[in-house]
């Protein structure tokens, strides 16, 4: 996940944002971030892809990413420029896919309560500390187990397995 601080404007959405609205099947013939990015969250918020700036942050309620196993979903969000997703909870396949493709995700219900759409937020992915720079408030996201942390530190599963196969990280 890297130790660089993440900073951006928040796009806030509700509960159970499903993979079909994150990236509709009509675009899923492509796996390429640059082709998926213009359609990220299109069926939920048609203005997202045109408004999102590099580093911006998606904040949502429970069960973010429920539905399909399509990895195109976190690829689209990351490709659009979002630096991370903060949610009350994530659906399990989306959670795994995000870790595996290197999209930082943070589980922080209190932070979701204290952040509004359009706020500017800073996130330290190394410590999980989330700070609302617009209206104040500081929270710490749930820590990841070391095994998962290890995948994130390698930039995702491809890097992790590459290192493992090379015998550097077993």
């Amino acid at each position, binding site marked *: 996940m890297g130790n660089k601080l993440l900073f951006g404007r928040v796009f806030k959405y509700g*509960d*159970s944002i*499903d993979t*079909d*609205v994150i990236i*509709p*099947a*009509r675009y*899923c*013939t*492509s*796996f390429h971030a640059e082709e998926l990015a213009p359609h990220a969250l299109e*069926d*939920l918020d048609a203005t997202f892809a045109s408004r999102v700036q590099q580093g911006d942050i998606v904040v949502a309620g*429970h*069960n973010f990413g*429920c*539905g*399909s*196993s*399509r*990895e195109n979903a976190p690829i689209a969000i990351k490709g659009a420029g979002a630096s991370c997703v903060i949610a009350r*909870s994530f*659906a*399990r*396949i989306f959670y*795994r*896919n995000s870790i*595996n*493709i290197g999209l930082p995700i943070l589980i922080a219900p209190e932070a979701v309560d204290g952040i509004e759409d359009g706020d500017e937020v800073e996130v330290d992915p190394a410590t999980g500390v989330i700070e609302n720079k617009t209206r104040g408030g500081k929270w710490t996201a749930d820590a990841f*187990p070391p*095994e*998962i942390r290890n995948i994130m530190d390698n930039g*995702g*599963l*491809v890097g*992790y*397995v*590459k290192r*493992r*196969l090379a015998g550097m990280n077993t």
Partner: protein
Amino acid sequence: MPHTICEKILAQKAGLGEVFPGQLVTAKPDMVMSHDNAGLVIRQFRQIGAKNVFDPSKIIIPLDHRVPAESEQTATAHKSIREFVKEQNIQNFYDVREGICHQVMVEKGHVLPGELVLGTDSHTTSYGCVGAISSGIGATEMAALWATGEIWLRVPDTLKVVVNGEFPGGVGPKDLILYIIGQVSAKGADYMAIEYYGPTIESMSVSGRFTVCNMSMEMGAKFATVPADEKTVKYVSSLADRPYQPVYADNDAVYSRELIVDASKLVPQIAIPHRVDNVVPISEVSGLDINQVVIGSCTNGRIDDLEIAANIMDGKQVSSDIRLLVIPGSRSIYLEAMELGLLKTFVEAGALVLNPGCGPCLGAHQGILAPGERCLATTNRNFKGRMGSTSAEVYLSNPKVAAMVAISGKIPTLDEYNSELD
């Protein structure tokens, strides 16, 4: 310590004496499955830099999502998969002709009681219908599995669902699972395993159990399973090409929650837009005009589903306001439906009988909805934009409701439903 089915299977596959909920384990699955998204798996497998797959005999690839290819991009992905399976000597490759991946996995015996299977599709939970545990993962994760044969898994808490009572006439597994999803909610079983028990489950066919395990994913479940019994063993005995050992929970296994359902009180259930847990009894949507009906999918595309629909439609005509799509779940179901005369009934009534595959269920192709249109489907998801336009609506039901809607153009009242003999 006493353990649930899932804890015992995961312990076995991780080579550990016992495992506990919350623990992360490295497991070796018995089989791994990918469909059209094997195209992305292959790309990631190359990125990893691996040369050969861990074991070609444990990899199953059925093409089903966009078959035959609906676009040049899909055709190119399919081509890369065909080349890869030759290169890696993957024998269990099923080209566009064979059927929906989950149906193919079960009916070809690629999953057996007590096994652990992972697949790059969310409805991989289906294989609990034969007493296995199975779950969906992403493509990169599958690439890592192809390279190493291993995966990290968190041992889930287990939800025990006990179903008692006899189904009223015309009510069945689809109504049961929609009702349970409505009760538990879309996130109510997130990260959990579900074990199904009770006389109602025991009386269900493997096909009915398939429907229940398939849609358990819509509550967030990681695994869903029905303990193997004589029905399971009878089903798999002619298919199994390797030894298997059913796994059962200990009597005093610890469940994080227990849910008891009385099936005798159920009426037909409908999931209304745009969430699968938005479930109502049929009376709440009776009279609603529908434009398209889909009978099929990994949820309800088996021979018993088609028989229920054909019995309703026999000698009748599809409403002029309806497009009816019937999609048998696999080639073998298609053939059996043909031999039983079901396909003739459908075609005579005015249905389009499509080739086995996923097509309209995920809005990939075949029967895309226009703005403002309504579809009633026996499939498993009704998310916004799922079958086409974001202003279209998808309603989910059992096959009998679907067949009746195809004839009348409207969702029936409970009285109309009950007056129609099964």
